[in-house]
């Protein structure tokens, strides 16, 4: 086996409860985003662009669709002879099989996988976030500062800070404390859930953590605090760029809308940092005479006869005559009839919206969600119903 300096462990088992009907049969990392991607495409593309060619993807909840999507990693260039992508579900052992009890336990159960590559460093990331980040720069800093652990942090808006796990740092960027979603934040430096560990350090803590019956086997709650206690050098890598946790319906909707700004803060078109995804094999989109498409992202295979404003349309969506779609996210292969009105909604993939149906309302504040494959008839006037 070829030795690897750093390998990535991607936590993709999240259930994504707060995404409601969108994750009913789907793991959160497989949720659609940005007109053609799934959330996990961003972290996988980050890995590849950062020069990481060995990625273990830890799956647990509803893995069928996710496994099918990931395959052997070909779309991301991770179908390698040495390393590449390996899907790591919980497995049976002599002592019986167990689910991954927590994020730390998931890594613990896969120590044999990691050991095969004899890495110096292990990058632990999750497949729940939208961002473009060069992990190699983070590793450089990790080495330069001689840290045992480096945690990526981003400065968030003070108003929103209480939604995140926050970090306190000193002038040398050493982490001095954590706060998990405090009511009154005293820091605005949020942890991005991106960690680089020295493997020997992490391994010993994972083994100790597993032996501790009081532990919840979670990185944030158990392992990191234990390392803090022992006065290990925990350093912070400050990330300056777009980062979004798309864990809720609102944030998923917002992150999609962010792409529609004149100069979007997340550039999907950078030829040096392409976001790879599975190709849906669709012809180019057809915009009919009489249609109007403004401030929107539209993907391949769409057939548009209506009016599309400030919306994100995934591939294979058809929009009939006289229909208007405003501030909405329409997932793949949705069929929208004629004279339909959709405001501020997320329409799950494969849904059929019949002629004259109305979804949401022009003045609604809430985002309406139509579940995957749902059939909406005209009289059902859905306004802000989840």
């Amino acid at each position: 086996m070829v030795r690897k300096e750093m390998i990535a462990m991607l936590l993709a088992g999240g259930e994504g409860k707060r995404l409601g009907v969108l994750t009913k049969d789907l793991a959160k990392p497989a949720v659609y985003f940005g007109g053609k991607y799934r959330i996990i495409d961003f972290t996988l593309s980050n890995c590849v662009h950062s020069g990481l060619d060995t990625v273990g993807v830890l799956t647990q909840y509803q893995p069928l669709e996710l496994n099918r999507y990931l395959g052997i990693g070909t779309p991301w260039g991770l179908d390698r002879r040495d390393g590449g992508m390996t899907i790591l579900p919980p497995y049976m052992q002599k002592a019986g099989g167990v689910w991954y009890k927590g994020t730390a336990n998931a890594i613990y159960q896969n120590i044999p996988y990691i050991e095969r590559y004899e890495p110096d460093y292990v990058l632990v990331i999750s497949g729940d976030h939208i961002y473009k980040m060069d992990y190699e720069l983070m590793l450089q800093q990790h080495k330069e500062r001689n840290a045992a652990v480096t945690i990526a942090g981003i400065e968030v808006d003070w108003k929103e800070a209480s939604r995140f796990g926050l970090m306190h740092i000193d002038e040398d960027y050493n982490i001095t404390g954590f706060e998990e979603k405090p009511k009154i934040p005293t820091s605005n430096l949020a942890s991005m859930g991106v960690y680089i560990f020295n493997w020997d350090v992490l391994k010993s803590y994972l083994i100790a953590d597993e032996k501790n019956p009081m532990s919840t086997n979670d990185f944030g709650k158990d392992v990191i605090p234990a390392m803090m206690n022992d006065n290990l050098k925990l350093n912070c890598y400050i990330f300056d760029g777009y980062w979004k946790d798309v864990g809720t319906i609102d944030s998923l909707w917002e992150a999609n809308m962010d792409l529609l700004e004149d100069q979007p803060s997340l550039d999907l078109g950078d030829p040096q940092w392409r976001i790879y995804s599975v190709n849906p094999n669709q012809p180019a989109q057809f915009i009919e005479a009489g249609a109007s498409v403004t401030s929107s992202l539209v993907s391949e295979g769409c057939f548009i006869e209506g009016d599309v404003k400030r919306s994100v349309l995934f591939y294979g969506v058809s929009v009939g005559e006289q229909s208007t779609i405003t501030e909405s996210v329409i997932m793949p292969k949705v069929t929208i009839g004629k004279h339909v009105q959709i405001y501020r909604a997320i329409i799950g993939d494969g849904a059929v919206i019949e002629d004259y149906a109305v979804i949401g309302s022009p003045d609604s504040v809430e985002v309406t969600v139509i579940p995957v494959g749902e059939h909406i008839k005209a009289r059902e006037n859905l306004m802000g119903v989840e």
Partner: protein
Amino acid sequence: MNKQKIMGVINLIHETDELDKLTQGRCTATVPFGSRYRLIDFTLSNMVNSGISEVGIFVHRRYRSLMDHIGSGKSWDLQHRQSGLFVLPPITDDVQELSRGDLFHFYQNRDYFLRSAPEYVLITRSHMVCNIDYRKVLKYHIEKQADISVICFRSDEPVLGKARKVRMDDDGRVTEIQDSYGRMVSDYSNMEMYLMKKELLMDLVETSLAKGQDHLVRHAILSKLNELKVYGYVHEGFLAVVNTINSYYGNSMKLLQPEVWRSLFYEPAPIYTKVKDGPPARYTNDADVSRSIIANGCLIEGKVHNSILFRGVHVHKGAVVEDSIIMQNGVILPNSSVTCSIFDKDVILEENRVVKGVKSGPYLAGKRRVI
């Protein structure tokens, strides 16, 4: 269950090429078409969709772009152990030999045919753009107990582009085939797709060459219409013959009819092409797009009407694109207008310029031109 019955050969030797600057640096097979495809994608996808997974491409001239496009055949699912994509360049010591007929090429590659398991061989060209299930052709071929089946297209009006004419009797047996410039009048055009047993092909190759004949269709098939049972299979659906600039333009514009778009790209099966990983097309607040086909990766800030934009085209604010085809990464800068034009890849139209062709003679800008 999926045992291979047919092997495919895409014959690019001496393809009719009156595509002017579009084939200056590439072969006909890799001329971009339909907003995100190359001509060869259609016949290649048709083969794959029909269960043909052994495909040989007889390349001839300027095939660098083809090698780049095809790669390992992954995009067409042809990179498997059980399948194979072979690019077969001319085996020649002498450049002069390139001008000899395609039968030499078949002869030189007879090992390729003999080593393959399938019983039948389907020979196609790249410039006949259609969506077709070749399994139906095989069924017809067996029903008619034909020696050769040739795929034809029926149309009351003359087809755009250059295609041979076919005449057949009531039973479908082909009685005459003439070159496009021939005087014969017929509703049937020859789609240059021939299905026959591999054994027959090998026989035709050897006997024709022995007689000093060196062209597959002109010599080996046309001269034997009396001896061999040649049947015409009529393709239902859309056909674009793309080998002249006018047929390129005219057929591209036909894609702007929704029924043609659906029929060519979805029925009976999808068309595959090389994956580019571009983001979805982005329309700004000023975008004004109607009756157009737009590929992913485009950024549209201006007006686009009755046009086809390939991947990564940028139409700036105040710019107007009408009745035109703009290939990959074209840039139309502010306040310029393009009408009835074909822009090859990477063409830049500077600010405040007006470029105008006419429908019967579109303006053609070669690759990487700055206007």
